[in-house]
């Protein structure tokens, strides 16, 4: 089991690059109509999930909403399996039956990929209940966007997690917009983290454009939970460079706002930190970036060459034996 302190920052940067390049490639393939349905990109938010991975163990549970490509990649699901899922192929991480919004990887404790806003938050409480039931020290990471905090399921889950002292971290990836509606227009709070107070759950804020801040804040929270089971809430302030989904031109926000966040890019920032500290050369970075691009491109070839799920298997997954 890798302990958090063993996660190398250069490797974490490489993971952020892989996510970025994968998503860019997915965007291109979506525009080429190789990918159906909805496709929500994570570009800009990479430091959030990678920071969380850096703070946790491989056997901790992870569950997220529909903007889920990065969470699977961060957990080690291959780019091939992720791209093939977008193409609806049987080699996809959900055998082509889930699609972009329903990535699952049980072996890596990636519990989905859930597309009804807020509806997976009670699932996270249930997974955490199982940890407590079995007396394990595994923590559940539950990611969701700022839109989810106004759903009933979210409130019910936070309350029960509080009552039952469940080992779950509710991670709000606040990217300022729930679809096209800004937080100010949707949420009667000065700051999202205050939601936690209503359930007597400790709340924290972290800058989601800063990998180290996310990692360090979550490390602290995770260690406290392992010592003594309880829920926590972390509002991570981030930004998505793209629209809500591929079909959204994001005309509800200003170019200036987007530019401000682009200048604060999480990958650029971590790269600069590592370079300044002499831990990363430009050449090393270029090699890493090329590797990420090659991996993403190869995943497209893999997805194209993969088979569709067989029609004869249509009824195979309706009921378990």
């Amino acid at each position, binding site marked *: 089991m890798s302990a958090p302190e063993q996660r190398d920052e250069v490797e974490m940067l490489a993971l952020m690059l892989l996510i970025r390049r994968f998503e860019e490639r997915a965007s291109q393939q979506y525009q080429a109509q190789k990918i159906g349905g909805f496709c929500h990109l994570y570009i800009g938010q990479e430091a959030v999930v990678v920071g969380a991975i850096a703070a946790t163990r491989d056997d901790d*549970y992870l*569950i997220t909403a529909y903007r889920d490509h990065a969470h699977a990649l961060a957990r080690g699901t291959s780019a091939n399996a992720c791209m093939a899922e977008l193409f609806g192929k049987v080699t*996809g*991480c*959900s*055998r*082509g*039956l*889930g699609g972009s919004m*329903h990535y*699952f*990887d*049980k072996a890596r404790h990636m*519990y*989905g*990929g*859930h597309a*009804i806003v807020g*509806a*997976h*938050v*009670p*699932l*996270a*409480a*249930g*997974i*955490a*209940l*199982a940890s*407590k*039931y079995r007396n394990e020290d595994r923590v559940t990471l539950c990611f969701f966007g700022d839109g989810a905090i106004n759903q*009933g*399921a979210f*409130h*019910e*889950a936070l*309350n*029960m997690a509080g*009552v*039952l002292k469940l080992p779950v971290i509710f991670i709000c990836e606040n990217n300022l917009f729930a679809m096209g509606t800004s937080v100010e227009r949707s949420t009667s709070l000065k700051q999202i983290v205050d939601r936690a107070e209503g359930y007597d759950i400790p709340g924290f804020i972290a800058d989601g454009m800063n990998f180290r801040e996310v990692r360090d804040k979550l490390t602290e929270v995770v260690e406290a939970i392992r010592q003594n089971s309880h829920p926590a809430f972390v509002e991570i302030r981030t930004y998505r460079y793209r629209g809500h989904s591929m079909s959204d031109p994001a005309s509800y926000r200003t170019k200036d706002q987007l530019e401000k966040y682009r200048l604060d890019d999480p990958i650029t920032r971590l790269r600069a930190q590592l370079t300044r500290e002499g831990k990363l050369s430009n050449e090393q970075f270029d090699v890493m970036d090329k590797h990420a691009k090659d991996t993403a491109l190869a995943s497209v070839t893999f997805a194209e060459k993969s088979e569709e799920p067989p029609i004869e298997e249509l009824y*195979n*997954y*309706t*009921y*378990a*034996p």
Partner: protein
Amino acid sequence: MSGDMREVTYRQALNEALAEELERDANVFLMGEEVAQYNGAYKVSQGLLDRFGPMRIIDTPISENGFAGMGVGAAMVGLRPIVEFMTFSFSLVAFDQVVNNATNMLTMSGGQFNIPITFRGPNGPAHQLGATHSHATECLYANFPGLKICTPATPRDAKGLLKTAIRDNNPVLVLESELLYSSKGMIEPADQELLIPLGEAELKREGSDVTIICYAQTVPLALAAAEALEEEEISAEVLDLRSIKPLDLHAILNSVAKTHRVVVAEQDRPYCGIGSEICYRIQKEIFDELDAPIARVSQEDVPMPYNERLEKAVLPSAEKIVAAVKKVCDA
């Protein structure tokens, strides 16, 4: 079955099923409103907290959507939750969790996550509870592939079906009945394992002139109707579906091929009710066996009124079943 059979109530039978499965498998736990300290709103979980402790018998706040979802999450990691809805009318608040999460998960995950969960509680109209508390939800849930649904009408079926549901690797709805909780029936001795497979109907009474297809609350009504019809020299066969999904089509067709006349007595409403599907299946498979159009007895197609006289007018009854049988026998 032997002389060792004993009489228990439907409520006791469910309690025995819960206790036996909790004893048998440490992954099984019970969760819901008032299930622990209060011993169950309808006392089905009486004594279980004392016996199994607060980690396995869990009181929840009034948050049906939340605790149903919490059960699904626990099932994702291999626990076998039993989630009690105080009534299935309240399951409508949790509809999203039952339908989107419990039921879709296996397919969405490409077969990685089955959800071994039991949702149980009373379903269908009770007595003057009004529109919000009287829903018969079986027809709503029956539309979703991935769910199994059973509807025990007797103490023996209640115990045997609930135990099977808990051991099933899929989401199963055990639709009990408030009106039946205090009813009595004969059942195997406590030390004898009683498992009744899902998807197996049972002939509750044999007959030759007409088949009354029923389930849950309409079973005692159908049996009363059959008794009344006997006096008029009409021999009615009473087929209790016991499970809505999977449906025991084989048993239905066998009985219809014998009697050639059918009345479906269902506890839900007529529009897209369970009876619609049964009528379709019968005519599709053995149209030539029918000597008369199939009749249905169901609720009237209105939200449930509170007034006792009106409620009675809405609900299926033995008298309505008798009238329907006479109609199909005269045809």
